């Protein structure tokens, strides 16, 4: 069986700084594998059996290959990078379409397609459901547990006010909220092997998509205008090097 894990490269949001105008300084911020995507990959690895193949795919600039390499080091078997100038500016619809076409053309035997619940930079988490609809398969969002029996897969979903256990059909899209990151022991051998696996780069033409199906032109939404939200420091700053005094001060202001 083949698992497809769609991952995303995101800037490390904890390290993002802003300049004096309140705009983001993106230069020099390291890019990392999105934490939820890592959970998705771990979830797939946890149920993998001998003979199964885990395919990772990402859509992004050529630098996103580093993220795919990281996925291979974690334990994926093959990696595809969907990278093309034409893919730039894609909204949810265009992104899902590109991924759906990839799955149909390059991984038609895929069983489960796993995504992160949301990405650290966009936080909307809408690609998995849109991808599922475009592939015309059921979707299982906010998955916290995936278990495998001979009869098939079972997922546990967390809706916040409801914990639901469902049987998963042979083909489905899962968005993963939680996976066990500490399950796996790092191995030098796997790390070395991973460096030898080639990463296949696919462009718009390889996916046989038209220019109006991808990127900005394939999007169903457009940004009309943007405005910067300015924030000013108005708060009173107090020195708190002495915790006792600081606590007394806090008690006063509460």
């Amino acid at each position, binding site marked *: 069986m083949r698992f497809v894990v769609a991952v995303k490269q995101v800037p490390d*949001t*904890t390290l993002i700084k*802003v300049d004096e105008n*309140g*705009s*983001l300084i993106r230069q020099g911020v390291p890019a990392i594998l999105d*934490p939820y995507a890592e959970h998705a990959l771990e979830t797939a690895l946890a149920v993998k059996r001998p003979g199964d193949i885990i395919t990772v795919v990402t859509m992004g600039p050529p630098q996103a290959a580093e993220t795919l390499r990281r996925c291979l080091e974690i334990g994926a078997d093959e990696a595809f990078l969907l990278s093309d100038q034409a893919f730039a500016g894609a*909204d*949810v*619809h265009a992104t*899902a379409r590109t991924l759906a076409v990839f799955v149909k053309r390059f991984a038609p035997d895929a069983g489960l397609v796993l995504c992160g619940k*949301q990405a650290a*930079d966009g*936080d*909307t988490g*809408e690609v*998995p*459901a*849109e991808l599922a*609809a475009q592939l015309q398969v*059921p*979707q299982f*969002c*906010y998955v916290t547990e995936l278990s495998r029996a001979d009869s098939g897969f079972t997922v546990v979903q*967390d*809706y916040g*006010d*409801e*914990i*639901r*256990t469902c*049987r998963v059909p042979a083909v489905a899209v899962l968005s993963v909220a939680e996976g066990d990151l500490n399950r796996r022991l790092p191995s030098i051998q796997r790390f070395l092997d991973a460096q030898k696996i080639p990463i296949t780069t696919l462009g718009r033409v390889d996916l046989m998509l038209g220019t109006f199906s991808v990127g900005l032109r394939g*999007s*169903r*939404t*457009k*940004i009309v*205008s*943007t*405005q910067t*939200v300015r*924030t000013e*420091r108005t*708060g*009173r*700053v*107090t*020195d*708190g*090097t*002495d*915790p*006792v005094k*600081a*606590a*007394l001060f*806090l*008690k006063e*202001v*509460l």
Partner: protein
Amino acid sequence: MLERYKLNQSRADGTLVWLEIEHTPDGTPCLADVSKEILGRVRQLDNSRVFGVIFGHIELKPLYPEIFSYGVETLYEVHERRMVRFQPEAYAEALAQIAVRIEPAAILMGATPRGRELAPRTAALLDTGLTADCTGLQVKDRDLLMTRPAFGGNLLATIQCTTYPQMATVRPGTFPLPAPEPGREGTVIYWQYCGQAWKDIVSSESVVAAADDDICKAKVLVALGAGVKKTSLPVAESVARKLGGMVCCSRKLVEKGWFPASRQVGQSGRSVAPDLYLAFGISGSVQHLAGIASAKRIVSVNTDPEARIGEVADEIVVGDADAILKELDKIL
């Protein structure tokens, strides 16, 4: 000719709102607050027709007067016993069929976990655009101008869908709860869903968050961030108890597994509006700040005087969060 008769333009008009049904601990259905907020905003925007869609069975009947009192004129009820439970595939199919029938200019729903799952699936079936997590809605003729914070919150993007129906999910708590107008009337239309896209649900247990376990309703919140040690967790609980409040946290601590996701404040967690927000060791990522925009008073304790939370905090104490928390616990 086409120009004159405007035959090449969509005739889409009106707004369709998915009314999310929540269940109280004893199983009574009630209308989710976010749906009321959306209906209130839609009524303010223009006078076009308002359609509502609910999924469920006979238990929904007592809700009709309430739904009409918030301004719904035509209510589609997809009448099916299996739809009392959330079924994203079936819901999306039925919603798309109704949208094809009534051709609304816009489809709106709350950005709740279920709304965020249903909206993209419906958008894909209708092959239309979707803007997630809006914090503002304006209209220009029939076109919706949707505002949402881009990349955390220091850039507000105004987004338009290029196709009809325009779809958006709206963040809970964005708009004020409208006052109901009792006595308003409307039409109920029963809709039959004939598809077979049912989920094979083995079991489902509702985790009813008790009223005292909802950080959105707490008046005082003690918030912990990556700057505190794990040993400070019980101290923070104790401080929160003494202040009559609750403990919440930033995303980092949920990722570490110290807190359940229900305690997370920020763009991917909850938006909170306490009277007092006491932040310990929170640097204030743009996503986190988006979640505390409605807090009345923010006090921050952090070793870094330049931390971003300082931009919104009323009082900034520069010092070690763990030590101050411990001292505060002693003197309260």
